[in-house]
Protein backbone atom coordinates (compact mmCIF):
# COMPACT_ATOMS: atom_id res chain seq x y z
CA UNK A 1 0.00 0.00 0.00
CA UNK A 2 2.80 2.37 0.91
CA UNK A 3 4.27 2.04 -2.56
CA UNK A 4 1.37 3.92 -4.04
CA UNK A 5 0.80 6.21 -1.10
CA UNK A 6 4.28 7.71 -1.11
CA UNK A 7 4.27 9.14 -4.67
CA UNK A 8 0.79 10.58 -4.14
CA UNK A 9 1.97 12.14 -0.93
CA UNK A 10 5.10 13.52 -2.58
CA UNK A 11 3.01 15.01 -5.39
CA UNK A 12 0.85 16.77 -2.79
CA UNK A 13 3.94 18.09 -1.00
CA UNK A 14 5.40 19.42 -4.26
CA UNK A 15 2.07 21.05 -5.04
CA UNK A 16 2.14 22.71 -1.62
CA UNK A 17 5.65 24.01 -2.32
CA UNK A 18 4.99 25.28 -5.82
CA UNK A 19 1.33 26.13 -6.26
CA UNK A 20 1.32 29.38 -4.26
CA UNK A 21 4.01 30.90 -6.46
CA UNK A 22 2.49 29.52 -9.66
CA UNK A 23 -0.90 30.97 -8.71
CA UNK A 24 0.74 34.30 -7.98
CA UNK A 25 2.48 34.30 -11.35
CA UNK A 26 -0.73 33.27 -13.16
CA UNK A 27 -2.71 36.10 -11.59
CA UNK A 28 -0.03 38.64 -12.48
CA UNK A 29 -1.36 38.24 -16.06
CA UNK A 30 -4.94 38.80 -15.00
CA UNK A 31 -6.75 41.60 -16.81
CA UNK A 32 -8.92 42.53 -13.83
CA UNK A 33 -8.13 44.21 -10.56
CA UNK A 34 -9.72 41.54 -8.41
CA UNK A 35 -8.96 37.89 -7.77
CA UNK A 36 -11.27 36.67 -10.53
CA UNK A 37 -9.89 35.80 -13.93
CA UNK A 38 -10.80 38.43 -16.52
CA UNK A 39 -8.55 37.52 -19.39
CA UNK A 40 -4.86 37.66 -20.19
CA UNK A 41 -3.11 41.01 -20.01
CA UNK A 42 0.25 42.67 -19.40
CA UNK A 43 -1.57 45.54 -17.76
CA UNK A 44 0.02 45.13 -14.32
CA UNK A 45 3.51 44.75 -15.75
CA UNK A 46 3.06 48.08 -17.54
CA UNK A 47 1.68 49.59 -14.34
CA UNK A 48 4.69 48.27 -12.42
CA UNK A 49 7.13 49.79 -14.88
CA UNK A 50 5.40 53.16 -14.68
CA UNK A 51 5.31 53.18 -10.90
CA UNK A 52 7.91 55.70 -9.71
CA UNK A 53 8.22 54.17 -6.25
CA UNK A 54 8.84 50.69 -7.63
CA UNK A 55 11.41 51.81 -10.17
CA UNK A 56 13.22 53.90 -7.56
CA UNK A 57 13.17 50.91 -5.21
CA UNK A 58 14.54 48.69 -7.96
CA UNK A 59 17.40 51.09 -8.69
CA UNK A 60 18.28 51.32 -4.98
CA UNK A 61 18.08 47.54 -4.60
CA UNK A 62 20.35 47.00 -7.60
CA UNK A 63 22.93 49.52 -6.38
CA UNK A 64 22.92 47.91 -2.94
CA UNK A 65 22.91 44.28 -4.11
CA UNK A 66 25.72 44.78 -6.64
CA UNK A 67 27.93 46.70 -4.20
CA UNK A 68 27.27 44.25 -1.38
CA UNK A 69 27.88 41.26 -3.64
CA UNK A 70 31.20 42.63 -4.92
CA UNK A 71 32.46 43.59 -1.46
CA UNK A 72 31.35 40.41 0.28
CA UNK A 73 32.73 38.23 -2.52
CA UNK A 74 36.18 39.84 -2.26
CA UNK A 75 36.22 39.70 1.54
CA UNK A 76 34.68 36.24 1.71
CA UNK A 77 36.96 34.70 -0.92
CA UNK A 78 40.08 35.98 0.84
CA UNK A 79 38.74 34.73 4.17
CA UNK A 80 37.83 31.28 2.83
CA UNK A 81 41.33 30.95 1.38
CA UNK A 82 42.91 32.07 4.67
CA UNK A 83 40.79 29.60 6.64
CA UNK A 84 41.68 26.84 4.19
CA UNK A 85 45.40 27.49 4.71
CA UNK A 86 45.05 27.24 8.46
CA UNK A 87 41.92 27.10 10.61
CA UNK A 88 40.79 30.38 12.11
CA UNK A 89 38.44 29.33 14.85
CA UNK A 90 37.18 32.68 16.04
CA UNK A 91 36.44 33.95 12.54
CA UNK A 92 34.73 30.69 11.49
CA UNK A 93 32.70 30.70 14.69
CA UNK A 94 31.66 34.31 14.16
CA UNK A 95 30.61 33.57 10.58
CA UNK A 96 28.47 30.61 11.66
CA UNK A 97 26.97 32.71 14.43
CA UNK A 98 26.07 35.38 11.87
CA UNK A 99 24.19 32.71 9.89
CA UNK A 100 22.08 31.52 12.81
CA UNK A 101 21.44 34.89 14.45
CA UNK A 102 17.82 35.89 13.86
CA UNK A 103 17.69 38.59 11.20
CA UNK A 104 15.71 40.87 13.43
CA UNK A 105 18.49 40.76 16.08
CA UNK A 106 21.18 41.49 13.47
CA UNK A 107 19.03 44.36 12.24
CA UNK A 108 18.35 46.08 15.56
CA UNK A 109 21.94 45.63 16.71
CA UNK A 110 23.25 47.31 13.55
CA UNK A 111 20.70 50.08 14.01
CA UNK A 112 21.97 50.55 17.57
CA UNK A 113 25.57 50.67 16.31
CA UNK A 114 24.81 53.23 13.60
CA UNK A 115 22.81 55.45 15.95
CA UNK A 116 25.66 55.29 18.45
CA UNK A 117 28.23 56.28 15.81
CA UNK A 118 25.97 59.12 14.63
CA UNK A 119 26.34 60.71 18.05
CA UNK A 120 29.92 61.51 17.13
CA UNK A 121 29.70 61.95 13.37
CA UNK A 122 27.15 64.01 11.51
CA UNK A 123 25.82 61.26 9.29
CA UNK A 124 22.50 59.56 8.81
CA UNK A 125 21.10 56.26 7.64
CA UNK A 126 21.26 55.80 3.87
CA UNK A 127 22.25 53.47 1.08
CA UNK A 128 25.73 53.03 2.53
CA UNK A 129 24.44 51.73 5.89
CA UNK A 130 22.34 49.16 4.02
CA UNK A 131 25.40 48.07 2.02
CA UNK A 132 27.48 47.72 5.19
CA UNK A 133 24.76 45.56 6.78
CA UNK A 134 24.32 43.40 3.67
CA UNK A 135 28.06 42.74 3.38
CA UNK A 136 28.09 41.69 7.04
CA UNK A 137 25.48 38.96 6.53
CA UNK A 138 26.63 37.90 3.02
CA UNK A 139 30.27 37.11 3.89
CA UNK A 140 29.26 33.83 5.58
CA UNK A 141 27.43 32.63 2.43
CA UNK A 142 30.44 33.42 0.25
CA UNK A 143 32.83 31.65 2.64
CA UNK A 144 30.65 28.52 2.61
CA UNK A 145 30.53 28.32 -1.19
CA UNK A 146 34.28 28.96 -1.65
CA UNK A 147 35.27 26.64 1.20
CA UNK A 148 33.27 23.81 -0.35
CA UNK A 149 35.31 24.22 -3.53
CA UNK A 150 38.63 24.47 -1.68
CA UNK A 151 37.95 21.19 0.12
CA UNK A 152 38.55 19.34 -3.16
CA UNK A 153 41.46 21.51 -4.18
CA UNK A 154 44.89 19.97 -4.44
CA UNK A 155 47.31 21.70 -2.07
CA UNK A 156 50.33 20.48 -3.99
CA UNK A 157 49.46 22.77 -6.92
CA UNK A 158 50.43 25.81 -4.89
CA UNK A 159 53.48 24.08 -3.47
CA UNK A 160 54.61 23.26 -6.99
CA UNK A 161 54.15 26.88 -8.01
CA UNK A 162 56.25 28.03 -5.07
CA UNK A 163 58.93 25.42 -5.73
CA UNK A 164 59.17 26.86 -9.20
CA UNK A 165 59.85 30.27 -7.71
CA UNK A 166 56.42 31.88 -7.34
CA UNK A 167 55.86 34.02 -4.27
CA UNK A 168 53.01 33.17 -1.91
CA UNK A 169 50.91 35.92 -3.48
CA UNK A 170 51.71 34.79 -7.00
CA UNK A 171 50.83 31.18 -6.20
CA UNK A 172 47.48 32.42 -4.91
CA UNK A 173 46.68 34.90 -7.66
CA UNK A 174 48.02 32.96 -10.65
CA UNK A 175 47.20 29.36 -9.68
CA UNK A 176 44.50 29.14 -7.04
CA UNK A 177 42.38 32.13 -7.97
CA UNK A 178 41.79 31.11 -11.62
CA UNK A 179 40.80 27.62 -10.50
CA UNK A 180 38.37 29.13 -8.01
CA UNK A 181 36.78 31.41 -10.61
CA UNK A 182 33.54 29.41 -11.12
CA UNK A 183 33.02 29.11 -7.36
CA UNK A 184 33.68 32.82 -6.94
CA UNK A 185 31.12 33.66 -9.60
CA UNK A 186 28.62 31.31 -7.96
CA UNK A 187 29.23 32.91 -4.56
CA UNK A 188 28.81 36.40 -5.99
CA UNK A 189 25.46 35.48 -7.57
CA UNK A 190 24.29 33.94 -4.32
CA UNK A 191 25.32 37.07 -2.40
CA UNK A 192 23.50 39.17 -4.99
CA UNK A 193 20.25 37.27 -4.43
CA UNK A 194 20.58 37.18 -0.65
CA UNK A 195 21.16 40.93 -0.58
CA UNK A 196 18.45 41.80 -3.07
CA UNK A 197 15.87 39.77 -1.16
CA UNK A 198 16.50 41.06 2.34
CA UNK A 199 13.68 43.00 3.93
CA UNK A 200 14.01 42.65 7.71
CA UNK A 201 17.53 44.01 8.24
CA UNK A 202 17.22 46.51 5.39
CA UNK A 203 14.03 48.09 6.72
CA UNK A 204 15.80 48.82 10.01
CA UNK A 205 19.00 50.39 8.66
CA UNK A 206 17.66 52.13 5.54
CA UNK A 207 17.28 55.90 5.47
CA UNK A 208 14.47 57.96 3.95
CA UNK A 209 16.25 58.10 0.58
CA UNK A 210 17.14 54.42 0.39
CA UNK A 211 13.89 52.48 0.12
CA UNK A 212 14.60 49.15 -1.53
CA UNK A 213 12.29 47.11 -3.75
CA UNK A 214 11.35 44.65 -0.96
CA UNK A 215 10.47 47.64 1.25
CA UNK A 216 8.17 49.05 -1.45
CA UNK A 217 6.59 45.61 -1.99
CA UNK A 218 6.08 45.20 1.74
CA UNK A 219 4.38 48.58 2.02
CA UNK A 220 2.14 47.80 -0.97
CA UNK A 221 1.26 44.33 0.35
CA UNK A 222 0.36 45.87 3.67
CA UNK A 223 -1.89 48.49 2.10
CA UNK A 224 -4.08 45.92 0.38
CA UNK A 225 -4.84 44.33 -2.94
CA UNK A 226 -2.71 45.50 -5.82
CA UNK A 227 -2.07 43.22 -8.77
CA UNK A 228 1.03 45.34 -9.45
CA UNK A 229 2.68 43.49 -6.56
CA UNK A 230 1.87 40.18 -8.27
CA UNK A 231 3.60 41.36 -11.44
CA UNK A 232 6.72 42.51 -9.57
CA UNK A 233 6.73 39.27 -7.55
CA UNK A 234 6.52 37.17 -10.69
CA UNK A 235 9.48 39.05 -12.19
CA UNK A 236 11.50 38.52 -9.00
CA UNK A 237 10.68 34.80 -8.88
CA UNK A 238 11.80 34.29 -12.47
CA UNK A 239 14.96 36.41 -12.10
CA UNK A 240 15.96 34.72 -8.83
CA UNK A 241 15.31 31.28 -10.25
CA UNK A 242 17.53 31.99 -13.24
CA UNK A 243 20.37 33.44 -11.13
CA UNK A 244 20.31 30.55 -8.66
CA UNK A 245 20.32 27.95 -11.43
CA UNK A 246 23.36 29.63 -12.99
CA UNK A 247 25.01 29.79 -9.59
CA UNK A 248 24.44 26.07 -8.98
CA UNK A 249 25.78 25.15 -12.42
CA UNK A 250 28.92 27.15 -11.66
CA UNK A 251 29.36 25.37 -8.33
CA UNK A 252 29.22 22.00 -10.05
CA UNK A 253 31.89 22.91 -12.59
Amino acid at each position, binding site marked *: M*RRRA*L*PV*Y*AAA*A*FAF*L*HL*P*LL*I*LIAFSFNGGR*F*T*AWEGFSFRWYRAAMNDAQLTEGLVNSLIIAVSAAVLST*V*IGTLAAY*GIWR*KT*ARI*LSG*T*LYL*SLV*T*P*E*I*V*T*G*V*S*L*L*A*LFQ*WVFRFLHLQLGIYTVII*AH*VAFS*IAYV*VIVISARLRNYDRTLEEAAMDLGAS*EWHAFSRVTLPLLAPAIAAAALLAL*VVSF*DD*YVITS*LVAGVDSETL*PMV*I*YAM*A*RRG*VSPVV*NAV*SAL*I*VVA*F*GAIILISQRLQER
Partner: protein
Amino acid sequence: MRRWFLMPARLWMALFFAAPLAIICAYSLLTRGDYGGVERPWTVESFTRLADPLYLAIFWRSLWIAFLATALCALLGFPLALFISRAGLRRNLYLQLVLLPFWTSFLVRTYAWLFILRDTGLINTLLTRFHLIDGPLPLLYNDGAVLLGLVYNFLPFFVLPMYATLERLDPALLEAAADLGARPFAVLWRVVIPVSAPGFVAGSVLVFIPCLGAYLTPDLLGGGKSVMLGNLVQNQFTTARDWPFGSAASLVLMLASAVILSALMRSRIARELV
Protein backbone atom coordinates in the same frame (compact mmCIF):
# COMPACT_ATOMS: atom_id res chain seq x y z
CA MET B 1 50.77 36.55 4.67
CA ARG B 2 47.75 34.49 5.73
CA ARG B 3 46.83 37.21 8.21
CA TRP B 4 46.20 39.59 5.33
CA PHE B 5 43.72 37.23 3.76
CA LEU B 6 41.74 37.00 6.97
CA MET B 7 42.06 40.66 7.92
CA PRO B 8 39.17 42.17 5.88
CA ALA B 9 36.67 39.56 7.08
CA ARG B 10 37.90 39.82 10.66
CA LEU B 11 37.60 43.60 10.56
CA TRP B 12 34.15 43.64 8.96
CA MET B 13 32.70 40.97 11.24
CA ALA B 14 34.20 42.61 14.32
CA LEU B 15 32.90 46.08 13.43
CA PHE B 16 29.54 45.19 11.93
CA PHE B 17 28.54 41.97 13.63
CA ALA B 18 30.33 41.52 16.96
CA ALA B 19 30.42 45.19 17.99
CA PRO B 20 26.67 45.69 17.36
CA LEU B 21 25.93 42.64 19.52
CA ALA B 22 28.18 44.04 22.24
CA ILE B 23 26.27 47.31 22.06
CA ILE B 24 23.00 45.42 22.45
CA CYS B 25 24.42 43.68 25.52
CA ALA B 26 25.35 47.05 27.03
CA TYR B 27 22.04 48.67 26.10
CA SER B 28 20.06 45.88 27.72
CA LEU B 29 21.54 47.00 31.05
CA LEU B 30 20.82 50.73 30.61
CA THR B 31 17.73 52.88 31.12
CA ARG B 32 15.43 54.07 28.38
CA GLY B 33 16.09 57.66 27.24
CA ASP B 34 13.37 60.29 26.97
CA TYR B 35 13.54 60.52 23.17
CA GLY B 36 14.49 56.95 22.45
CA GLY B 37 18.10 55.90 22.84
CA VAL B 38 19.54 55.00 26.21
CA GLU B 39 20.71 56.69 29.42
CA ARG B 40 22.38 55.80 32.63
CA PRO B 41 21.92 54.43 35.34
CA TRP B 42 22.80 50.79 34.77
CA THR B 43 20.01 48.45 35.76
CA VAL B 44 18.68 44.96 35.22
CA GLU B 45 15.14 46.29 35.01
CA SER B 46 14.69 45.30 31.35
CA PHE B 47 15.37 41.68 32.22
CA THR B 48 13.06 41.68 35.23
CA ARG B 49 10.35 43.20 33.04
CA LEU B 50 10.73 40.27 30.64
CA ALA B 51 9.52 38.04 33.47
CA ASP B 52 6.22 39.95 33.40
CA PRO B 53 3.40 37.49 32.54
CA LEU B 54 2.59 39.48 29.38
CA TYR B 55 6.07 39.00 27.96
CA LEU B 56 6.51 35.50 29.31
CA ALA B 57 3.38 34.62 27.39
CA ILE B 58 4.97 35.94 24.16
CA PHE B 59 8.08 33.88 24.91
CA TRP B 60 6.16 30.63 25.46
CA ARG B 61 3.98 31.39 22.48
CA SER B 62 7.01 31.77 20.20
CA LEU B 63 8.44 28.49 21.50
CA TRP B 64 5.07 26.79 20.98
CA ILE B 65 4.54 28.08 17.44
CA ALA B 66 8.13 27.21 16.50
CA PHE B 67 7.62 23.74 17.98
CA LEU B 68 4.38 23.18 16.06
CA ALA B 69 5.96 24.42 12.82
CA THR B 70 8.88 22.03 13.36
CA ALA B 71 6.58 19.09 14.06
CA LEU B 72 4.57 19.83 10.92
CA CYS B 73 7.74 20.15 8.83
CA ALA B 74 8.89 16.76 10.15
CA LEU B 75 5.53 15.21 9.39
CA LEU B 76 5.43 16.66 5.88
CA GLY B 77 9.15 16.48 5.20
CA PHE B 78 10.02 12.93 6.22
CA PRO B 79 7.87 11.13 3.63
CA LEU B 80 9.00 13.64 1.00
CA ALA B 81 12.68 13.00 1.80
CA LEU B 82 12.01 9.26 1.78
CA PHE B 83 10.37 9.55 -1.62
CA ILE B 84 13.27 11.55 -3.05
CA SER B 85 15.90 9.20 -1.63
CA ARG B 86 14.24 6.32 -3.50
CA ALA B 87 13.62 8.15 -6.74
CA GLY B 88 16.71 6.76 -8.45
CA LEU B 89 17.90 8.87 -11.35
CA ARG B 90 15.30 11.55 -10.80
CA ARG B 91 16.68 12.36 -7.34
CA ASN B 92 18.44 15.50 -8.46
CA LEU B 93 15.40 16.81 -10.26
CA TYR B 94 13.25 16.35 -7.17
CA LEU B 95 15.89 17.92 -4.95
CA GLN B 96 15.92 20.93 -7.27
CA LEU B 97 12.15 21.10 -6.99
CA VAL B 98 12.46 21.28 -3.20
CA LEU B 99 15.22 23.85 -3.38
CA LEU B 100 13.82 26.17 -6.02
CA PRO B 101 11.03 27.82 -4.01
CA PHE B 102 13.52 28.05 -1.15
CA TRP B 103 15.72 30.25 -3.30
CA THR B 104 12.97 32.52 -4.50
CA SER B 105 12.42 35.64 -2.48
CA PHE B 106 11.31 35.07 1.10
CA LEU B 107 9.13 38.16 0.97
CA VAL B 108 7.45 37.07 -2.26
CA ARG B 109 6.76 33.60 -0.89
CA THR B 110 5.08 35.07 2.18
CA TYR B 111 3.16 37.55 0.04
CA ALA B 112 1.87 34.65 -2.08
CA TRP B 113 -0.02 33.36 0.97
CA LEU B 114 -1.31 36.84 1.72
CA PHE B 115 -2.70 36.86 -1.81
CA ILE B 116 -4.32 33.43 -1.38
CA LEU B 117 -5.69 33.80 2.14
CA ARG B 118 -6.98 37.32 2.51
CA ASP B 119 -10.64 38.33 2.53
CA THR B 120 -10.56 39.22 -1.16
CA GLY B 121 -8.01 36.50 -1.85
CA LEU B 122 -8.16 33.43 -4.02
CA ILE B 123 -9.79 30.95 -1.62
CA ASN B 124 -12.48 33.32 -0.40
CA THR B 125 -13.24 34.54 -3.94
CA LEU B 126 -13.60 30.97 -5.21
CA LEU B 127 -15.77 29.88 -2.29
CA THR B 128 -18.00 32.92 -2.70
CA ARG B 129 -18.23 32.38 -6.44
CA PHE B 130 -19.58 28.88 -5.91
CA HIS B 131 -21.90 30.12 -3.16
CA LEU B 132 -20.31 27.90 -0.56
CA ILE B 133 -19.94 30.78 1.89
CA ASP B 134 -21.80 34.06 2.47
CA GLY B 135 -19.02 36.19 3.86
CA PRO B 136 -15.24 35.77 3.62
CA LEU B 137 -13.70 33.23 5.98
CA PRO B 138 -11.15 34.72 8.40
CA LEU B 139 -8.19 32.81 6.97
CA LEU B 140 -5.58 35.48 7.54
CA TYR B 141 -4.24 37.22 10.64
CA ASN B 142 -4.36 34.27 12.99
CA ASP B 143 -1.95 31.67 14.37
CA GLY B 144 -2.96 29.14 11.74
CA ALA B 145 -1.87 31.47 8.95
CA VAL B 146 1.47 32.12 10.68
CA LEU B 147 2.02 28.40 11.11
CA LEU B 148 1.19 27.75 7.48
CA GLY B 149 3.62 30.46 6.36
CA LEU B 150 6.41 29.11 8.58
CA VAL B 151 5.97 25.51 7.42
CA TYR B 152 5.86 26.64 3.80
CA ASN B 153 8.99 28.75 4.13
CA PHE B 154 11.10 26.33 6.15
CA LEU B 155 10.08 22.90 4.86
CA PRO B 156 13.21 22.66 2.63
CA PHE B 157 15.37 23.13 5.75
CA PHE B 158 13.96 19.86 7.06
CA VAL B 159 13.88 17.91 3.81
CA LEU B 160 17.56 18.45 2.91
CA PRO B 161 19.28 17.00 6.03
CA MET B 162 16.61 14.30 6.20
CA TYR B 163 17.35 13.35 2.61
CA ALA B 164 21.10 13.36 3.32
CA THR B 165 20.72 10.69 6.02
CA LEU B 166 18.13 8.63 4.15
CA GLU B 167 20.33 8.59 1.07
CA ARG B 168 23.06 6.85 3.05
CA LEU B 169 20.62 4.25 4.31
CA ASP B 170 21.82 0.85 3.07
CA PRO B 171 19.05 -0.86 1.05
CA ALA B 172 20.43 -4.21 2.25
CA LEU B 173 19.24 -3.25 5.72
CA LEU B 174 15.67 -2.99 4.48
CA GLU B 175 15.89 -6.24 2.54
CA ALA B 176 17.27 -7.99 5.61
CA ALA B 177 14.37 -6.73 7.71
CA ALA B 178 11.86 -7.83 5.09
CA ASP B 179 13.55 -11.22 4.69
CA LEU B 180 13.29 -11.71 8.42
CA GLY B 181 9.56 -11.20 8.13
CA ALA B 182 9.02 -7.54 8.93
CA ARG B 183 5.96 -5.93 7.34
CA PRO B 184 6.57 -2.70 5.38
CA PHE B 185 5.27 -0.61 8.27
CA ALA B 186 7.50 -2.42 10.74
CA VAL B 187 10.49 -1.80 8.47
CA LEU B 188 9.64 1.90 8.43
CA TRP B 189 9.01 2.18 12.15
CA ARG B 190 11.79 -0.06 13.47
CA VAL B 191 14.54 0.34 10.88
CA VAL B 192 14.18 3.46 8.73
CA ILE B 193 13.13 5.91 11.43
CA PRO B 194 15.74 4.90 14.07
CA VAL B 195 18.53 4.95 11.49
CA SER B 196 17.49 8.39 10.26
CA ALA B 197 17.48 9.99 13.71
CA PRO B 198 20.44 12.31 12.91
CA GLY B 199 18.53 13.75 9.96
CA PHE B 200 15.49 14.23 12.15
CA VAL B 201 17.43 16.15 14.77
CA ALA B 202 19.41 18.27 12.32
CA GLY B 203 16.31 19.11 10.28
CA SER B 204 14.30 19.97 13.37
CA VAL B 205 16.96 22.33 14.67
CA LEU B 206 17.33 23.97 11.27
CA VAL B 207 13.58 24.63 11.22
CA PHE B 208 13.10 25.46 14.87
CA ILE B 209 15.75 28.18 15.13
CA PRO B 210 14.60 30.41 12.26
CA CYS B 211 10.97 29.86 13.30
CA LEU B 212 11.73 30.97 16.85
CA GLY B 213 13.28 34.20 15.57
CA ALA B 214 10.77 34.69 12.76
CA TYR B 215 9.66 38.24 12.19
CA LEU B 216 8.35 38.73 8.66
CA THR B 217 5.94 35.76 8.56
CA PRO B 218 4.10 36.55 11.84
CA ASP B 219 4.14 40.22 10.86
CA LEU B 220 2.55 39.77 7.42
CA LEU B 221 0.35 36.72 7.98
CA GLY B 222 -0.40 37.18 11.68
CA GLY B 223 -1.19 40.88 11.49
CA GLY B 224 -0.98 42.67 14.80
CA LYS B 225 -2.58 39.78 16.65
CA SER B 226 0.01 37.06 16.43
CA VAL B 227 3.03 38.49 18.21
CA MET B 228 6.20 36.45 18.44
CA LEU B 229 9.56 37.37 20.00
CA GLY B 230 10.87 38.82 16.74
CA ASN B 231 7.91 41.20 16.52
CA LEU B 232 8.40 42.22 20.15
CA VAL B 233 12.04 43.13 19.41
CA GLN B 234 11.13 45.09 16.27
CA ASN B 235 8.35 46.92 18.05
CA GLN B 236 10.57 47.99 20.94
CA PHE B 237 13.16 49.44 18.55
CA THR B 238 10.68 51.27 16.34
CA THR B 239 7.25 52.24 17.67
CA ALA B 240 7.77 51.79 21.41
CA ARG B 241 11.30 53.25 21.33
CA ASP B 242 12.36 51.27 24.37
CA TRP B 243 15.82 50.20 23.27
CA PRO B 244 17.00 48.67 26.56
CA PHE B 245 13.95 46.42 26.69
CA GLY B 246 14.26 45.53 23.00
CA SER B 247 17.94 44.71 23.55
CA ALA B 248 17.09 42.45 26.49
CA ALA B 249 14.47 40.67 24.40
CA SER B 250 17.03 40.24 21.55
CA LEU B 251 19.49 38.67 23.96
CA VAL B 252 16.89 36.24 25.29
CA LEU B 253 16.05 35.28 21.70
CA MET B 254 19.71 34.74 20.84
CA LEU B 255 20.34 32.83 24.04
CA ALA B 256 17.40 30.49 23.41
CA SER B 257 18.68 29.78 19.88
CA ALA B 258 22.26 29.28 21.09
CA VAL B 259 21.22 26.82 23.81
CA ILE B 260 19.32 24.69 21.31
CA LEU B 261 22.12 24.82 18.76
CA SER B 262 24.88 23.95 21.22
CA ALA B 263 22.80 21.06 22.54
CA LEU B 264 22.80 19.70 19.00
CA MET B 265 26.52 20.32 18.49
CA ARG B 266 27.42 18.43 21.64
CA SER B 267 25.19 15.48 20.95
CA ARG B 268 26.42 12.24 19.41
CA ILE B 269 24.07 12.87 16.55
CA ALA B 270 25.99 15.89 15.31
CA ARG B 271 29.17 13.86 15.12
CA GLU B 272 27.43 11.17 13.14
CA LEU B 273 26.12 13.76 10.75
CA VAL B 274 29.50 15.29 9.97
